[in-house]
Each structure stands twice: as structure tokens, then as C-alpha cells.
């Protein structure tokens, strides 16, 4: 009797394990079936264009976020209109740790969402060429050339559609500017310093800065003095201390800090300092445009935001602004790329696109949509030809974490002169 019971228990354990494996297989088979049958079914329909089509999308948003709600509503509307059902999996911000494995293993994944830079590089071999479908809808006419050109340059073809364009520069609280009587945004470093002094004289803190963005802040300044190529060269081979422009750039930041233009406690722990712009105690922050929605969420009400490009310096070399994007791509093994593309268009244009702008506080992915938070951001992006990168090739250096920390230290006032700082950079580069 004991043997029989033992045998039954062992069998039950083995069966439960087998069931675990089996369910994955059956799920795969189930999810693959509609796609396989799509070609045959899509023509025999009751009038709906993609009846029976099933698409799988991995999103970088988390369930419940305003962007997720807007996209889900778009999926429901798309299904009602075309008959195609979209299974959206809300993977959250760490979606980049999952996409490669899914693409390389051939998992059923039709649409995915990530940084357009990563889509253009790391995922490029597994992405669908969207050029023809984009041309058919006149995508170039209502999108940003800077992103499309980059995508084509990196992947060899248009392999992503921008969903969330981003622009970097200086974001300011218009109410604080008004209270200080500042009517013109500064174009040059000298004008910027004057604005900072005016703000300080009026009892406000000029510039908020969290340690997390200290590198981006200083990189903007370096780019003005040196340009990205020269920075890359110095990062690779050293020679910072011998470069007059680099020394000047660092010295200007040291002088800026010594003049007391940084907010109290800055560089602070993210997001403490940037929140001060929303609270109205600090006036400006150097970041990308998502800072506006982060700060709005932190203070619980929309801030009266303004934006201007990082000011030019004396002998300015490069006036470009940072531009980046979270984009949507179609995997190369997608069996219904046209349906997937149509759904992507549903997300980035029309009602959903406008909702992402209005509720998500983002820049319109479709240039025909109405701007919500940052007036002029669409025009700025449309006029951008060569966008500045997020800290460029310095990111790839062996000592990048040390360089980033040194940039925080620069804003902490740890270096007496620009030459001292550049000499330290030379110990980390080359």
C-alpha cells in the first residue's frame, strides 16, 4: 500500500512539473495560431480589415499609467474598427532587459517599445523595415526628420516610429521668471548669468540640480565649448588639461557654483532638487522634457513651464540640443506587419497621440497635434538636424562611472580651478 501511495505521489509531482512545461507550449501554440491563420482569415471577413488578427505588444509603460491607459483605449478602438486584437503586456521601464531575449528566441512579439537608440543599434537585426509603409501614409510630413534620419543611419532603414519625442535644455518655472520680471529667455552664457543674478536678487534659487543629471548638465556646457567629436577624442585619448576650451568650460561651472547660483543642497539626491522648480523656490533645471511631468506629479499640480536651449558660450562650437525618443518597432518575424504598423499609427496620431500629449505631458509625436506643456518644442525639434546625444561617447569609456561622479564633484565645488578638474579628468581618460 505504501509503495502505491509513494508511486502515486511521485507521479503527481512529475505530472505537475510536466504540466508547467506543457502550459507554456500550449500557450505558445495558442498565441501562434491566430497569426498563422491570419492571411487566410483576413480576406474572408465581415468587412473588418484585420478580423482574426492577433498582435502582441510589449510596452515600456506600467499598467495604470496615463500613457498605458491611453494606449489600451487605442487598442480597444483599433479592435472595434479593424477587428485586430492587440495583447499588450505592460513590462515597465526594464523592458530593455527582456526584448533581446524575446527577439533572439523568436518569441511571438509583434510590436515593442524602447529607446530609439537601442532599437537602432541592439535590436536592429530583428526589426522590420518600415520605410514603405511609412511612405504610404506620408510619415515624413508629420514626424521629425532628426529621429527618422538617425534610425536610417543606425539600422540602414527606418526601423522605428517615434512615440515619445524628447528634447533637452533648460526648463523653467514661468511664474518665477514673471515674479523676477524676466521677460526674455537668455541666449548666451553671459545673459544666462545675468538672469541667474536677477533671480537670486529676487530671493529665488536660480538653478536646481540633482546629482543624477550633473553629467548631462556639464556635458551640455562642454558641447558648447568643444563639440561632441572633440569631447569623444579627449575621452578616448586624454589631454583635457591641455585643452583651453575644456579648462574654460570647467572654470565657468566652478565660477557659477561659487556665485551661489545653484539651489540649496544641489547637487541633491534625485528628485529633491528638481522638485523645487515645481514648488516655486527654484527657477530652472537642466534636463530633458520628461522632467516637467515628473515635477508636476511630485507637486501634485501642473507647473507653468517654459523652455529654452542651453545658452551659447563665447566662441560657441555647437549649439545643438539633446533630442531622444522612445519609439515603437515591429519585429521582423511579425506576420501582420501592416496591421502592426496601422496600430502604431493609431497610438502616435489622432486621439491617442493627443491624449499622450495632454495627459502624459509629452511632446507630440505627430507634428500636426496640439502642443500641451512646452510651447515651441515641436518647432525646435523640427528644426533640429543633428541632435546632441546623452553624454555621447563618454558613456562607453571604462572610467565612465568615475567621470560621472567627478562631474557631480565639480558642482559640489570640490575643484579650485578648471585646470585642476581637467587634470583629474586626464587621470580617468586615455
Amino acid at each position: 500500500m505504501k509503495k502505491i501511495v509513494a508511486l502515486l505521489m511521485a507521479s503527481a509531482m512529475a505530472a505537475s512539473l510536466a504540466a508547467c512545461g506543457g502550459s507554456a507550449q500550449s500557450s505558445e501554440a495558442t498565441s501562434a495560431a491566430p497569426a498563422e491563420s491570419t492571411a487566410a482569415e483576413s480576406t474572408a471577413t465581415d468587412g473588418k480589415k484585420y478580423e482574426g488578427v492577433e498582435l502582441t505588444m510589449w510596452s515600456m509603460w506600467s499598467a495604470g499609467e496615463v500613457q498605458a491607459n491611453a494606449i489600451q483605449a487605442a487598442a480597444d478602438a483599433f479592435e472595434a474598427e479593424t477587428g485586430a486584437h492587440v495583447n499588450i503586456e505592460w513590462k515597465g521601464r526594464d523592458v530593455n532587459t527582456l526584448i533581446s531575449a524575446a527577439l533572439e528566441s523568436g518569441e511571438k512579439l509583434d510590436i515593442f517599445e524602447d529607446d530609439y537608440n537601442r532599437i537602432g543599434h541592439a535590436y536592429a537585426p530583428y526589426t522590420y523595415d518600415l520605410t514603405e509603409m511609412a511612405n504610404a501614409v506620408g510619415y515624413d510630413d508629420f514626424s521629425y526628420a532628426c529621429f527618422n534620419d538617425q534610425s536610417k543611419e543606425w539600422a540602414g532603414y527606418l526601423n522605428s516610429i517615434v512615440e515619445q519625442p524628447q528634447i533637452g535644455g533648460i526648463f523653467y518655472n514661468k511664474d518665477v521668471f514673471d515674479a523676477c520680471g524676466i521677460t526674455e529667455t537668455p541666449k548666451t552664457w553671459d545673459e544666462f548669468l545675468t538672469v541667474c543674478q536677477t533671480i537670486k536678487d529676487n530671493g529665488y534659487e536660480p538653478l536646481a540640480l540633482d546629482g543624477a543629471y550633473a553629467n548631462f548638465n556639464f556635458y551640455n556646457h562642454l558641447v558648447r565649448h568643444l563639440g561632441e567629436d572633440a569631447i569623444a577624442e579627449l575621452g578616448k585619448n586624454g589631454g583635457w588639461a591641455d585643452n583651453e576650451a575644456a579648462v574654460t568650460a570647467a572654470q565657468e561651472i566652478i565660477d557659477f557654483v561659487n556665485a551661489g547660483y545653484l539651489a540649496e543642497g544641489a547637487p541633491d539626491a534625485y528628485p529633491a532638487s528638481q522638485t523645487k522648480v515645481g514648488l516655486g523656490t527654484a527657477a530652472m533645471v537642466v534636463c530633458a522634457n520628461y522632467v516637467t511631468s515628473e515635477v508636476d506629479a511630485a507637486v501634485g499640480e501642473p507647473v507653468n513651464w517654459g523652455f529654452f536651449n542651453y545658452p551659447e558660450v563665447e566662441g560657441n562650437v555647437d549649439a545643438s540640443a539633446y533630442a531622444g525618443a522612445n519609439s515603437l518597432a515591429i519585429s521582423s518575424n511579425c506576420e501582420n506587419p501592416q496591421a502592426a504598423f496601422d496600430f502604431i499609427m493609431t497610438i502616435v496620431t489622432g486621439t491617442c497621440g493627443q491624449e499622450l500629449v495632454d495627459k502624459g505631458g509629452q511632446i507630440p509625436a505627430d507634428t500636426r497635434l496640439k502642443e500641451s506643456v512646452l510651447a515651441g518644442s515641436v518647432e525646435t525639434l523640427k528644426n533640429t538636424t543633428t541632435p546632441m546625444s546623452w553624454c555621447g561617447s563618454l558613456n562607453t569609456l571604462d572610467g565612465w562611472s568615475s567621470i560621472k561622479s567627478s562631474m557631480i564633484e565639480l558642482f559640489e565645488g570640490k575643484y579650485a580651478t578648471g585646470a585642476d578638474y581637467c587634470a583629474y579628468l586626464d587621470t580617468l581618460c586615455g
Partner: protein
Amino acid sequence: MKKNKTMIFLFILPTVLCLLFMYVYPVVRTVIMSFFKVESLTATTSTWSFYGLQNYFKILRNAGFISSMKNMVMIWLVGGIITMCLSMLMAVILTSGIRGAKFFKAAIYMPNIISAVALATMWIQYVFNYDYGLLNQIVKAFGGENVRWLGTDLIFWAMMIAFIFGSVGYYMLIFISGIEGIPQDLYEAATIDGANIFDRFFQITLPLLKGVIRTCVTFWSINATTFFLWTKMFSPINTETATIVPVVYLYDTVFGGKGVVERDAGAGAAVGVVLTLIIIAVYVITNLILKDSDLEY
């Protein structure tokens, strides 16, 4: 009871299979991968190219990896000593028959049932905050000026304090279970012989807890080596030298980061292998130092 080998085999088989597929296979694959140039973690083996020891040379020459190792050693050694001493102290006090021992046990253990993310947020936003954090309120009450606790100089120690706060309760419970297993007769006999509280601790409690201490050191070594979340919370967005640890370096190497699209799964695998060897070495050394004795609890 008569042993039935077939039954034993059948019962063990599912576990052995799980172990082989879910543990041994990834470990073997990671070790092999560390000798190859591999960009993506899940790239097919046909795309791998033999790289010899280059991945190991690469990480050992990398300033970020060296910083991460230094930080890990500091967490293991300094954090370990402080955590073990505090845990042992709490355990001894709470097993000495003081009133309210149950309450204090629960209170000290509580950080372990709270999400580490919530715990880290609490420390960052309410304790170390520059403007309204608890510590700066205390500093100001004594007439001092605000301190930048999360600046580059102090952020590592701030992170360490928060981590220790969350760890003490766990090790305290392990020590308590060990101490409670020691027969009271020994203490009574020692007291009759004139031993004071320190004599009893150093001559009875500590020697008899060797096995427990060995277990705690091994657990702590694993915790220090796999340290990840606290760094991510204290340095969100960008990894910084002061807080980087090997697992975060591994993560950044394998998956890239903000503005970084380069990935190197081979180098990441090498980091994983190095960390595994460190844990094995610590385990072996701990066993050599704290040898098994006939009597321990």
C-alpha cells in the same frame, strides 16, 4: 524502516532535474560564455567567438569594476562587522530575560518585512534629505549647518547605514535561535563558578555559536556579493563610483544604461564567474577558520 532505492530515486528525480535545468545549465553556460566574445545574453552560440581570458582582463582593467569591487569589500567587511556585532548584541540582550523582548524582537525584525524599495525611499527622502531630513534637523537643532548626506563623500556610508538597518533584524533572529539552543545549565554552572556576564558570553555563548556564526558569515557574503537594489535606489538613473557594486556593473555591462547601447554579455559573464569564485572562497576560508567542533548549537 527498509529503504526502497527506487522510491528514493523517484522522489529525488524531479528536484534533480530542476536543479540540472534551472541551475547547473545556466552556471555552465555562464562559465563558458565568459571565455567568448558575446554581445547579447541570449545570442545563439553560433554567434559567439572565442575570446580566451580577454573578458577577464577587460573587467580587471576597468576602473568601474575595480571601484565596484572595493565597494563590495567595504560592504562585506565593515558592514559585516557592524551588522554581526549589532545583531549579536541585540540577540544577547533579548535572550537575557528583559521585559518586552517579544516586542523588541518584532520591532527590530520589522525592516525585513518591508519592501527594500520602500525602506530605501524612507532613508533617502525622510532621513538623509538635505532640506527636511531627520539628520539635518538634528544637526540644525545643535546649531550646525545642513550636511549633504547623499553627496559624493557620504553617499556610500549613507547607503551602508540604511542597508545595515534593514539587515540587523534578520541576523539577530538567527543568533537568538542559536542562543536559545544552548542549555541553561551551562550558564548556571558558570555563574556558580563566579563567571560574570562577559565571561559567560565569551567563554560559553560565542564558542557554542560557531556554527551559527559560520552560517551568518556565508549569508552575509552572499548578500554583499549580490548587493544591487540599494545601489539602484541611492544612484537612480546613473551609476556612480561611490555606490557602484559588481552586480550593478554586471547589469550595466550586459544591458547597457542611460544613453548606452553597447552590451557585452561575455564580460558580464566573467563578472558573474568572479563573484561566484569569491563566494566559494569566502565559504571555504570561513570553514577553515571556524572549524566544526563537537559541541555547537
